[in-house]
């Protein structure tokens, strides 16, 4: 049974020892949690959780080099792979929330895109089971890495993002272990030491990638990093793209640690630029080489890699899927869906924008 979660064997990736414990635990915990909610009423909720992102701290010392690093696409055939996860709250029960989590890996090989999606996993998270669910999943991850549980369970409203983050790190690990001499794209930054990204865990992922001759590039869709009070992605020199702008003097307060060097990447003439974190341990040549290989092997409309864009698109839950998940939990677990009035709407009419979850 568990072999089916091996995401790489069908696509000629190298075959290291792949840890498949996490998805198995995801499924087990998912089913266990849903069993506890049978024949309860469900209050609908369509709010999507953005993945937990590290609150960018903005050290005043951050500077942006004005001289761009000119890039030239390297068309040497290189595997470009990306990973992203998504979570959504399906609704509330009397005792908790029902959420769904899904991850997607996309890669471009031989001029075509392929993907593997994992999930959705549906959880019923309550105050009673949140610790068990989270710790079991953490253990499934750590038992092979650290062998101990040292993460505290998050509060219930953070659980969707924490579970998605856990799945994302596992999928990133799988990519790092299996992609040889490629370019691995992460969504977000290489900032670690945060509640959902322990430094050691990210360090391990980057280390696996390096051992396999791959380089990790992390693209942030949005950043709050500023140099001289202006967002780093809005200080683009009048220079022909593609290019990178190097940053200097970026330091975070412990325990937050930056495992990558931060650049601003403008990959094509579209007037967009993104924060790009590149593994700090990689040599200058490897870093530039990885970005040039990305340019030579992937599409980058709007200056954003298509592989990463597809990963995001593929893991995002559509309204249709939310309906299907509701159908699933109603049919399989006897959860009745009820529409409780939205108090914001009820009290404020058109001025009530509904509950906002953060």
């Amino acid at each position: 049974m568990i072999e089916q979660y091996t995401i790489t064997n069908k696509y000629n990736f190298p075959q290291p020892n792949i840890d498949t414990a996490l998805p198995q635990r995801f499924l087990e915990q998912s089913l266990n949690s849903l069993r506890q909610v049978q024949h309860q009423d469900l209050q609908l909720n369509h709010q999507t959780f953005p993945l937990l992102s590290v609150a960018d701290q903005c050290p005043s010392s951050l500077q942006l080099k004005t001289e761009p690093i000119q890039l030239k696409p390297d068309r040497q055939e290189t595997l470009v792979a990306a990973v992203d996860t998504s979570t959504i709250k399906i609704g509330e029960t009397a005792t908790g929330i029902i959420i769904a989590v899904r991850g997607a890996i996309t890669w471009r090989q031989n001029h075509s895109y392929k993907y593997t999606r994992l999930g959705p996993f549906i959880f019923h998270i309550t105050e009673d089971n949140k610790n068990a669910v989270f710790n079991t999943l953490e253990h499934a991850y750590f038992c092979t890495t650290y062998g101990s549980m040292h993460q505290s369970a998050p509060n219930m409203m953070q659980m969707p993002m924490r579970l998605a983050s856990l799945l994302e790190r596992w999928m990133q690990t799988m990519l790092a272990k299996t992609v040889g001499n490629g370019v691995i794209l992460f969504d977000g930054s290489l900032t670690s030491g945060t509640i959902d990204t322990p430094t050691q865990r990210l360090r391990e992922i980057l280390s696996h990638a390096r051992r396999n001759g791959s380089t990790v590039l992390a693209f942030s869709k949005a950043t709050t990093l500023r140099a001289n009070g202006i967002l780093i992605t809005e200080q683009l020199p009048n220079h022909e793209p593609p290019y990178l702008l190097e940053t200097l003097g970026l330091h975070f307060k412990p325990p937050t640690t930056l495992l990558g060097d931060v650049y601003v990447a403008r990959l094509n003439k579209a007037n967009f630029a993104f924060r790009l974190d590149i593994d700090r341990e990689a040599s200058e040549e490897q870093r530039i080489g990885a970005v040039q290989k990305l340019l030579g092997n992937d599409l980058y409309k709007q200056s954003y890699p298509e592989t990463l864009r597809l990963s995001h698109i593929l893991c995002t839950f559509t309204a249709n899927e939310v309906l299907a998940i509701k159908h699933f939990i109603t049919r399989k677990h006897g959860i009745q869906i009820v529409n409780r009035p939205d108090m914001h709407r009820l009290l404020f009419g058109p001025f009530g924008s509904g509950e906002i979850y953060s």
Partner: protein
Amino acid sequence: MKLYKKEGNILQVISFPTESAEKGDYLLVEDQEAGKALIAQVIDVQFAAVPGVLEELLRTLPDGGEPLQGEDIDPMEIAPHITYIQDASLLICKIRATLENDTLSPSSSWLPSRSQSTIKKLSVPMLMKLAKIDGKLPIVLGGTKDSSLLTIDASAIDGTLNIITGKKGCGKSHLSKLLMVNLVGYKATVVVFDLNGEYTSLGMSNDGKRNMYYDKIHTLTPGQNFKVALEQLHLNTVMGILVNALHLPGTSAREFRRIWKMLKEKGKLNMQELGEEIRNLNCNQHVRDALASRFHSLANSGFFTDSPGEATLLDESLMKARDQGGAIVINLKNTSNIDRQIVVEYALGKLVDSLSNWKLKAVFLFAEEAHLYLRETYWDDIVTRMRHFGIFTTFITNQPDTIQENIYRQADNIFLFNFTNEHDLDVVSRAARVDAETVRSIAHDLPPHHCLTLGRVVSDFPIVARVRALDIKTMGETRLFFNNN
């Protein structure tokens, strides 16, 4: 199935893939609390506007246009549920009636409960039972989709104006033959204007042997076994032919009337004497020429004879048919346009004469492509005046726009086969007993030999049926150049 919306007499019902419903099917929307149910017919099947479907489809198409290849590891098996939701359909239904205390009423003024109503398919037999579509004189039209028989009552065709229409080769003539032989079976008198000679073998079965109708089918071919002598004709009938078919002007018509009366008084009413009299007529040159040309048209038709022995009387055939039931097939194949009009004028005049004198009780008239032989003023005559005499007409055509709008408005029954052309469907949808949406939607998708029956015969519940086969020798097939024989 779930009730989604009601606008006017249109219901919108959400149907899931496991609940198959197609155009033409009937649904019973039952509100138990209200003690009532709506009977609605599916007139269109659309995709339900499920939110997120567009995104779902779009994300499988990357920039290159090739579908994105990949693998979904779905351990909880959510994918079938996604497909289930994505393939949900929206049934657009027309409310046909309200069922309350086992009684049907055409009302759609009440609103069933959206949450409590149950929706299920209504089988045709059940519908026919509720609508009391039965009777003592059953005619099995064919089979419905749910393998039941669509049986109408012959008395629902009695006294009615019917239209059978559809595009070429879809089975119109076949249905008219089916109706005819069944009417003959119930001892009705049927007259057919057979434009292509395809009804002449109604008395023969497929294998060429005589069938049960053989003795009841009387085929009259003008100029061959169907001739008339002038002395058997009423002046009014002849005047009808001259004025309506041969367009004789009024002055000349008056002169002709005088000549006819004079010859009749002398006992010399025959073609030879008539021709002689016109030749020797001492009157205005133009009048004489007009009468001479009409006389030659009559003479050249071969339809008139001076030999009483040659004259097969329509009367005789009608009397036979009156006593035992029968069909008089007037074979208009190989007959010129003018001759066709002469024959039809004569036959209609004779029918009106026989009916007004109560020699006949009523006649079912089947007219194929009537615009080719029926003068315009007769259309109104047929649907109004002649109906009161007892001529109940069924028009058969593949060009619905050749039938006047007022005919559609007064049609009691319409047997509609497939039409692809929107214009044709628009024309048919003018019928009073038909709603345009039903016609446009259902008739557009009818397979060959399937007929949408509308009107009195089905108590205004449109029903689609595949017209059943008949063991009758086929004569209506198109002659082909590239065939094996």
